[in-house]
């Protein structure tokens, strides 16, 4: 069974704007998928529905066997614990250092201190920030802040990592570092869904690419297909 299964998903905002219409999509476990398209094409709405920040107006979204679209507001945390989310603006706690920002996700569940320490150190090693653990977000570069956010997203060992334009605020070199980290995480078996505007990255990585426009899937490129396209 696919990890993510969307059937006839439609999202109309209260303002009357139709962001997503009749969307059918299936993503398998272990895939690395880019979602691209012009601004306002519905790609952000799509992934916001995946981690249940938005509810579809109609249709079904099943994530790892759980019907996310039917999940009640006070049960959302159950799905959030199984996925990691990374944003363009990092969303770090300014008053907490790198270690605390990552540990935060584990402390909520009441894990023993030693286990939290082990997991946080492992996650920070993976993103290459072990020696920055004591620094606060305002002492870090954009790339380091994003790597902190990635460490926080993966510290729970999620099956799915959702990235909403994670390189949107970063220069090219830093973006490549972030992508390298994401690839590393993908290699360890995590499914990655990433929304991006950066076509260079998409072309270089040769992964599956979903091109959206006006709330629909315009094309679904298999691995490597997009690089040869002249779009």
């Amino acid at each position, binding site marked *: 069974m696919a990890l993510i299964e969307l059937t006839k998903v439609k999202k109309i905002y209260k303002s009357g704007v139709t962001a997503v219409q009749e969307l059918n999509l299936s993503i398998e476990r272990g895939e690395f998928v880019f979602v691209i398209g012009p601004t306002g094409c519905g790609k952000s709405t799509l992934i916001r529905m995946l981690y249940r920040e*938005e509810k579809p107006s109609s249709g079904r979204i099943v994530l790892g066997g759980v019907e996310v679209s039917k999940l009640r*507001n006070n049960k959302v*945390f159950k799905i*959030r*614990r199984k996925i990691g989310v990374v944003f363009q603006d990092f969303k770090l*706690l300014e008053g907490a250092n790198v270690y605390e920002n990552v540990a935060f996700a584990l402390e909520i*569940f*009441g894990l023993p201190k030693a286990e939290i320490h082990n997991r946080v150190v492992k996650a920070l090693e993976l993103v290459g920030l072990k020696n920055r653990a004591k620094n606060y977000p305002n002492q870090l570069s954009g790339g380091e802040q994003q790597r902190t956010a990635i460490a926080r997203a993966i510290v*729970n060992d999620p099956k799915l990592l959702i990235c909403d334009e994670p390189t949107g605020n970063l220069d090219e070199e830093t973006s490549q570092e972030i992508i390298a980290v994401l690839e590393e995480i993908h290699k360890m078996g995590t499914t990655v869904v990433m929304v991006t505007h950066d076509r260079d990255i998409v072309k270089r990585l040769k992964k599956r690419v979903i091109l959206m426009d006006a709330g629909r899937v315009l094309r679904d490129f298999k691995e490597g297909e997009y690089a040869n396209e002249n779009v």
Partner: protein
Amino acid sequence: MLMKMFRILFRNIRDAFKSVWRNFSLSLASITSITITLLVVAFSLILTFNVNYTAEMLAQNIEIVVFVEKGVEQEEITEIENKITVIDNVATLEFKSRVAIAEEYMADSEVFAVIMEGWDEDEIPLQDTFIVRVNDNEEIGKTADEIGDIEGVAATNYGRGMVEQLFGVFEIVQTASVVAVVALILVTAFLISNTIKITIFSRRREIEIMRLVGASNLNIKIPFVFEGLFLGVLGAIIPIAITIYAYNSLYTYDLSMIMPIVTLVSPEPFVYQISGVLLIIGVVVGMFGSWRAVQRHLRI
């Protein structure tokens, strides 16, 4: 499982402490608003209880003085006593002969002692009296009239007019202060809840991140509720200190010159009871205010 719960509880308490400290200026705003309103609540509570107490004390001292006609024999006095005793509203009855009254006067004042010393028992220009206390002060006028109608009774006196007026005033003050206390508690709740709402609004990002990493609504609320608890406790410290100090000072200060009819409630355990009430109001309102304020940020 139990260990896990303890760890979560401990973390919540620690985080609540930390965030009171980290968001110090906003915490200070909440604490100040709690402090000010609790001070006013304390003032109203003390006023209400003292008005009630004074009224009670006064009520206990109200009595009807029954003057027996001159020249009435002992037998008739006993008869009058029996007649007064059977009246429903009469609680206690005490006979005071004119000789006894004269002795009382003489003991009280040297001038009287000198004047009255030379008088024979028959020359004393005073009357035998009964001192009557009643069960229901509101019915005192009616009871005095009934006693007045008894044969052999010359007159009754209880301060007609003044007693009624005094009780009227007390009733108004009592009702007004109860209404004021209730209104104040509601205003406190509203004020505190609003201040905490502002505090939490500034931390919606933190709430958003907590949700994002998989915190349940309860996980998110509990630290804020603990924080509300701390704010309530901190906000209650100054009002409690002022209440204890100011009330004790007021109690030791001789008020009888300014307000002779006022009797203050003894400070122990009164001030501690008031302090307890202030602490409870602070804590409950702080916790409830936080709970409600976070709730608004947990809907998608």
